[in-house]
């Protein structure tokens, strides 16, 4: 597929800003997909950005006092409220700029959070911020469980994954619920821009961040952030796992601009879901029947998404 990139978007990894706003020396685990994704996000956002961040892996590994990995202004307040804090930051910057108390320059308010802080405890604040339409970007770094506290299931944990609060056992297949579809919930809020992304597709992710930064109003990006520790996989598989999630259709990459759906990566024929599951210890216990159940669900969700995408797809 030949691509035309509009001005301002990244074509090639070599053209990415050399500046690091999320600096080395932080304490993330080996092979952390989230740390990589945060770094890419910061590069795409650039200097004129303020980050609001809830409790979670990112906060703990990037800001143990007196050190910080952030070269951008950054604020942490509590677990459920990154989106609310972000709305306050946006309002504060706007009014102070209007009153001439800070330089007259556009600064983007960005709230980030893990899947727990976004899909569970923080969904009320997120929904409120999205509904109010703050000029703000929210990025969810979804590693599919409460990884910071030790791999407890969240509502974004996939069906069949074994976690410490939904362990697989003789009477249990692990997590019994299907992953909450947060991007769709955000689309239902009628926000300007919604996209899915993953760290294994860095250019795609950064372009989505750049687009989200430019839209007027609220934007949401759901970034699958591979967590080798919690997924019980080898650290060097981080990128591979992200690719597999896309290629198997478990995590399709798409964007929704003002209600118009578009795939940003088309894997062609989907690989079997088993390819993705078998390299992760959290799915080790699944029987062929259970894998088939998951495959059927993935097929169904993928078809539903295909039906929403416009044919032919609108030009990039």
């Amino acid at each position: 597929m030949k691509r035309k990139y509009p001005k301002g978007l990244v074509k090639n990894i070599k053209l990415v800003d050399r500046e690091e706003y999320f600096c080395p020396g932080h304490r993330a685990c080996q092979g952390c997909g989230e740390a990589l994704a945060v770094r890419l996000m910061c590069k795409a956002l650039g200097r004129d950005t303020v980050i609001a961040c809830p409790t979670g892996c990112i906060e703990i590994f990037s800001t143990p006092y007196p050190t910080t990995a952030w070269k951008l202004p950054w604020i942490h307040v509590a677990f459920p409220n990154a989106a609310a804090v972000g709305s306050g930051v946006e309002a504060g910057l706007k009014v102070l700029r209007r009153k001439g108390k800070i330089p007259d320059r556009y600064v983007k308010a960005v709230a980030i959070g893990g899947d727990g802080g976004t899909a569970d405890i923080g969904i009320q604040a997120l929904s409120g911020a999205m509904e109010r339409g703050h000029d703000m970007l929210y990025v969810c770094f979804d590693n599919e469980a409460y990884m910071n506290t030790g791999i407890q299931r969240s509502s974004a944990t996939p069906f069949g994954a074994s976690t410490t609060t939904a362990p697989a056992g003789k009477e249990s297949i692990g997590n019994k619920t299907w992953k909450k579809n947060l991007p769709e919930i955000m689309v239902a809020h009628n926000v300007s821009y919604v996209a899915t992304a993953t760290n294994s597709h860095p250019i795609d992710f950064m372009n989505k961040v750049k687009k989200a930064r430019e839209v007027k109003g609220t934007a949401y990006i759901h970034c699958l952030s591979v967590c080798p520790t919690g997924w019980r996989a080898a650290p060097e598989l981080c990128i591979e796992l992200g690719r597999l999630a896309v290629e198997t259709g478990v995590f399709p990459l798409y964007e929704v601009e003002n209600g118009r759906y578009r795939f940003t990566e088309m894997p062609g024929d989907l690989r079997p879901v088993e390819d993705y599951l078998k390299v992760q210890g959290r799915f080790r216990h699944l029987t062929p029947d259970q894998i088939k159940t998951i495959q059927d669900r993935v097929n169904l969700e993928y078809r539903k998404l295909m039906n929403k995408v416009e044919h032919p797809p609108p030009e990039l």
Partner: protein
Amino acid sequence: MSRRVGMEVAIAAAEAVALCNIDVAAVYPITPNTHVAEHLAEIVAEGRIDSEFITVESEHSALSAVLGAAGTGARTFTATSSQGLLYMQEVMPIASAMRLPVVMVIANRALSGPLNIWNDHSDIMLQRDMGWVSLFAENGQEVVDMLIQAFKIAEHREVMLPVNVNMDGFQLTHMVEPIELPDQAEVDRFLLEYKPYATLHPDRPITMGAFAMPEIFTEVMKAKDVAIVNAKKTILEVWKEWESLFGRKYEPVAAYKTEGAEVVLLTMGSMGETAEVAIDELRREGISAGLLKLKLWRPFPFKELKKAVKGVKVLAVTDRAVSYGGPGGPVCAEIRSALYDEPERPVIVDYIIGLGGRDVSVEDFITMGKRALEAKIKKPREAYKFYGVRGE
């Protein structure tokens, strides 16, 4: 020039906040605080002040949004009551730890359940240890004055702490009172422009709210404690300046006819005015009674309290909250503890009264004063007593 207006107190509170020219307010509606939010929204809608008014989806988000805005260097305000204050509680200690000078007005209301929308102090008493400066207003005038003072106290470089101003729900919020409303020039002269120390801006990036390991956490907590203890000096200065500008005097422990009093009642908030009438009546009956009104709750005014109760035989504390199975209502427990080391301390009796909007009349204060006097001879057996319980 100040102008004298007849105004509902909640409306006057919003007018006072508008005079402080806030940058951002985020408020979630809750009775009896709604009129503050509504009137402030009107003021912003009419363009009388240039502010962002965020209609958040919960109190938790109200305080969170206000903290985000305060982080950018904005002057911020929020308001709540009761369960709403409890919902904010998670964020309250963070505001004080991050030293963000937020101002909040609380229309004090009972906690559920059973559901009750009327006044007592059980909401704020639970927030005692959040590291906020806490003021109690006796009437509408004090609500207005204290709100303007609150911004000056909160933003003072040596304080930099959130401040809450407490007004009794309905008993104050929904009363129309004569109020001296200062004019803009007067407030501007008193309340200088807020110059924040560190803000969220890319020109000087900082990390706010870094997580603290055990090696440093205690030091941060001590810093907060030192700040709030030292805040008393600033509060007294601010009150002195207020008195010189507006002629209205504010004291941490205001005394009414306590000279030579044998029995002294102690109130917080709006009950003070009713109690004053009772004191006059008791004095007419030949009982040397007096009244203390506690207006500064945090930092606690130990020195002023000790001075105020010198020579008093019996101190009757009224508590509008219960510490279930505890050593007395929250106010009385503190006062007992504060006076424990005094060589000549009064006998202290604690009346739990006025819960959930139960009327407290002049007669009640007279009865309490007389009953308390009996404690001079026979010390009470219980640490606290519910006053006026049906069937007792």
